């Protein structure tokens, strides 16, 4: 009997697995019904409504996994932006009209940048809005205007094996939700696995590590805790009684300035690679959109050069 007790999970562990499974399953059923597909003689609008109700219930359960961040305003905005982004994501992939899909994707991007703002990343919030909502969505709309001539096309109303795709995607979501939602901060001295995890070294933050390890005299530890932008400064005085000015990383500079300093010193190669990538993509786009027609046997190369293109 004792052997079984060690192998089998406890009831609370089973509940921790089943509750996310229930929530994710509701969302999966709802999303499956909302995907465009023929389901016998059932009317699409009725199915879409039923799926929306099921997915909404699943979303309510999903929101129950979140925990408020404390103060009122961040809590309110976190819930607003999170719910909006998930609803927008569902409607992006279930809309019959690609234009509606693009607009719902814009709402996902806007709420995501709101979440960036809440996480103290104002530069990324602005950058995301400019890059996505400003350029990508407008260009997608342009392509849609170019391509939408036949109205409601067949392929927009028929999903490709929706049942299997839904099962696979929501299985991934269940795994992620289960592994993320069960990480709880336990009280100190808690010896259960989750309680220990909260005090594990892997979850210590870098500035916490500095308070724990920063007093040691090992230069390796001091270098590892310091951003490389500030390592080139002269080494700290060997006199241990002298006050050592240790940079603390965050709150050293205002947000965007700190990000820029980190990007152009610690991650200089990254910035260079990003520039090279943009350049290669530019060349690739120009090469793709203006293909030279192949010279086939039977066509005169001189004529091809003169006309520019020959229709086969």
């Amino acid at each position, binding site marked *: 009997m004792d052997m079984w007790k060690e192998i089998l999970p406890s009831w609370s562990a089973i509940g921790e697995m089943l509750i996310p499974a229930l929530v994710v399953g509701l969302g999966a059923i709802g999303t499956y019904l909302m995907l465009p597909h023929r389901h016998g003689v059932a009317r699409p609008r009725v199915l879409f409504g039923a799926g929306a109700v099921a997915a909404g219930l699943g979303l309510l359960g999903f929101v129950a996994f979140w925990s408020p961040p404390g103060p009122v305003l961040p809590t309110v905005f976190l819930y607003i932006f999170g719910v909006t982004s998930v609803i927008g*994501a569902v409607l992006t992939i279930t809309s019959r009209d690609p234009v509606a899909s693009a607009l719902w994707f814009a709402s996902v991007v806007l709420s995501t940048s709101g979440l960036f703002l809440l996480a103290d990343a104002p530069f990324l919030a602005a950058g995301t809005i400019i890059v996505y909502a400003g350029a990508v969505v407008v260009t997608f709309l342009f392509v849609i205007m170019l391509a939408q001539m036949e109205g409601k096309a067949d392929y927009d109303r028929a999903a*490709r094996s929706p049942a299997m795709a839904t099962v*696979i*995607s929501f299985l991934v979501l269940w795994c992620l939700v289960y592994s993320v939602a069960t990480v709880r901060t336990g009280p100190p001295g808690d010896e259960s696995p989750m309680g220990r995890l909260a005090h594990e070294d892997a979850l210590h933050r870098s*500035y916490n590590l500095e308070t724990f390890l920063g007093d040691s005299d090992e230069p390796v530890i001091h270098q590892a805790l310091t951003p490389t932008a500030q390592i080139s400064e002269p080494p700290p005085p060997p006199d241990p009684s002298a006050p050592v000015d240790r940079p603390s990383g965050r709150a050293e500079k205002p947000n965007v300035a700190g*990000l820029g300093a980190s990007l152009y010193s610690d991650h200089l190669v990254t910035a260079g690679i990003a520039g090279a990538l943009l350049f290669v993509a530019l060349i690739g786009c120009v090469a793709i959109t203006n293909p030279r027609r192949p010279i086939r046997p039977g066509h005169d190369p001189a004529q091809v050069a003169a006309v520019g293109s020959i229709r086969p």
Partner: protein
Amino acid sequence: MPATDVFSLDVLRDYLLIGAALFALGMLGFLSRRNLIVMFLSAEMMLQGTALSLVAFGRYHGNWTGQVFTIMILTVAACEASIALALIVILYNRRSSLDVTLWQDIREEGVAATPTSVVAEEAEPIEAIPGPESYPNLTPAGVEPAHPVQPWIVTRD
């Protein structure tokens, strides 16, 4: 003991959950939709979920690496979007359709072909909007001049 941070492990978990939801939904859209544009929007949505997780991790650990990585993701997303749009324009010019099923010739070896009639069979029926037709019925006036009749939509070869 360091001062307690507002961005606790609980808030990090909220961000990770939202990012996971965006990632899974984008994956579902990429796997199950047939429209090329919607597929690319879904891929961008997966990138959004990843960027959200990275920013939250960077904020939690108190360094800039997450945000720098997200800037890299933005760059890759911009490159991907430009190349994807170029490809979509090219593919549309060839087949006059955004259906990804038409491009199944480049599928993996050993995978059975999907007949193109499947798309029309699986498409959900279009519901007619109930109610009388709202366009006004105009009486033609005058004599119609002789002119060549041109179709509105010219389909490409």
